[in-house]
């Protein structure tokens, strides 16, 4: 994933992967070596510096949803190599590799379920699947989630972590931005809340479509969120970027998000907000 590494600043770049197995975990925020079980109890937030490590899509949904009544949606929709794309590797092989690595069939996992007994549909991106990039199948799963919300009259919550578009699907990928926005226009018309949670990193075509269209937009602390990658901006303006540029705190300051929420408070916060937004239903 070197293209995504390049998108990220040095601190979190080189050694930051999905949480490795084993007894010990190294924090990318403060480099402390942490006892895995303890970090796990802390929802993969560093116990020393509160650095929010990356979660897999299933971990994310597992932390968020009540245990009862979970049902995965759209699992049958999988990536198609529309263009027989091949760069240094065949896209087909990249897909197989990603599927092996993550044990997932695409970069977005959708589940219907409940949060504190309130029915909803939730979706979470899997960053380890080709950088959580948006393929046509990801767009379709997103649409399936939104359509479920429309049918059931329930809210939709999406946890984003993505490098943006999936280049190997070219215009098919770009058009998913339009598709996800279109389906959200229906949710808005039906007065059903869409809550978008931005986690590290949320960039490009994902950031410039559904992720910034939340009725409420929350972010985890210090997540990298933006349209253009920092490297691209630096190359364009030939200037070093200011400290904290495109981090959650920067977005909050500039009015782009509603709030920054610590991972341990996300479920309570969202449940509370939803119960208020849905009060009249």
């Amino acid at each position, binding site marked *: 994933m070197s293209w995504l590494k390049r998108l990220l600043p040095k601190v979190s770049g080189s050694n930051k992967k999905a949480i490795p197995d084993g007894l010990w975990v190294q924090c990318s925020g403060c480099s402390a070596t942490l006892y895995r079980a303890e970090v796990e109890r802390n929802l993969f937030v560093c116990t020393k510096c509160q650095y929010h490590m990356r979660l897999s899509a299933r971990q994310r949904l597992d932390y968020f949803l009540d245990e009862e009544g979970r049902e995965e949606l759209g699992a049958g929709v999988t990536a198609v190599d529309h263009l027989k794309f091949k760069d240094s590797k065949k896209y087909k092989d990249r897909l197989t590799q990603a599927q092996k690595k993550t044990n997932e069939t695409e970069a977005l996992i959708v589940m219907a379920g409940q949060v504190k007994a309130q029915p909803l549909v939730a979706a979470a991106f899997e960053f380890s699947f080709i950088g959580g990039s948006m393929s046509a199948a990801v767009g379709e799963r997103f649409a399936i989630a939104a359509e479920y919300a429309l049918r059931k009259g329930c809210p939709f919550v999406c946890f984003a972590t993505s490098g943006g578009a999936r280049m190997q*699907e070219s*215009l098919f*990928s770009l058009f998913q931005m339009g*598709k996800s926005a279109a389906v959200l*226009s229906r949710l808005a018309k039906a007065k059903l809340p869409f809550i978008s949670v931005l986690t590290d990193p949320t960039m490009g075509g994902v950031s410039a479509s559904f992720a910034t*269209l939340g009725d409420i937009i929350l972010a985890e602390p210090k997540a990298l969120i933006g*349209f253009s990658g920092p490297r691209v901006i630096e190359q364009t303006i030939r200037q070093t970027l200011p400290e904290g540029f495109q981090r959650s705190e920067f977005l909050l300051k500039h009015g782009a998000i509603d709030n920054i929420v610590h991972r341990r408070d996300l479920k309570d916060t969202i449940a509370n907000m939803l119960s208020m937004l849905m009060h009249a239903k």
Partner: protein
Amino acid sequence: MSLDYLDFEQPIMMLDEKINELKRVGVDTDVNVSEEIVRLKEKLETLTRDVFSKLTAAEIVKLARHPKRPYTKDYADRLCTDFQELHGDRHKDQGQEIYSGLARLEEQVVMVIGHQKGRTTAEKVRRNFGMASPEAFRKALRLMKLAERFDIPVVTFIDTPGAYPGITAEECNQSEAIARNLLEMAQLTVPIVCCVIGEGCSGGALALGVGDRTLMLQYAYYSVISPEGCASILWKSADKAAIAAEALNLTSDRLLSLGLIDTIVPEPLGGAHRDPDLMAATLKEHIIRELAELSIMDKTELVNARYARWLSYGSPDRS
């Protein structure tokens, strides 16, 4: 090398020069050159047809970026009458990277909105090379909503290397500006005809691209990322841009057969810049035809059809 000719047009340039030289000879002396000129002109046409019949994707990208290629304003001037330019997002900026206004297209009143590149150095800077700021996108949205309120169809011209990547753009939430346009365009209750006239690159292009019809000029390109950007990320070398251009399937004929655009608008021999008037006339015909088709639909029907169309991209089961 003359700015008028691209590298692959060198044989065309040489023949052009020969013809011009002959014309000069004909004027300056008594030698009768007319027969030879006719012969060379025929040869030139055959040669041009030949060169343009086997363009690579990378060559088409070059044509799409040709410095003489007509831009939004060139089309607006030729297609419309009574053009009234409308500026500004009402909050922060004039938004000159997008050219927009009310106009008449024959009998029909339309709202024209398109990315605008600059011709001179000063204009290029003022137009930010067609890379729109959040303010320009918000201006576009404001005008689309205005058009909706007065039942005026929207015609967009897409011609951008991408949305502007900069510090201020991020501070002003470039992502949201693009995303909001996508959402609002998806539910706008007037017809939207989108024309890719040059570069249709990434989210900055799509921010004017969610419509009822996508027309594409023959030598325009439409892609998720520039071939150079794609090459440097996936091939780790910008030198592989030509290969990336091919792989991205960004040409009008490929995109038509993939079902991602609706119509290819044919360009004059040698490209739109060789005959902007003819190009504009052809484009005008196409736009008028599409608007006529869309105008018979009622609002609900129109928005539902647009919705179905956008949900079906990449999901053939839905169409």
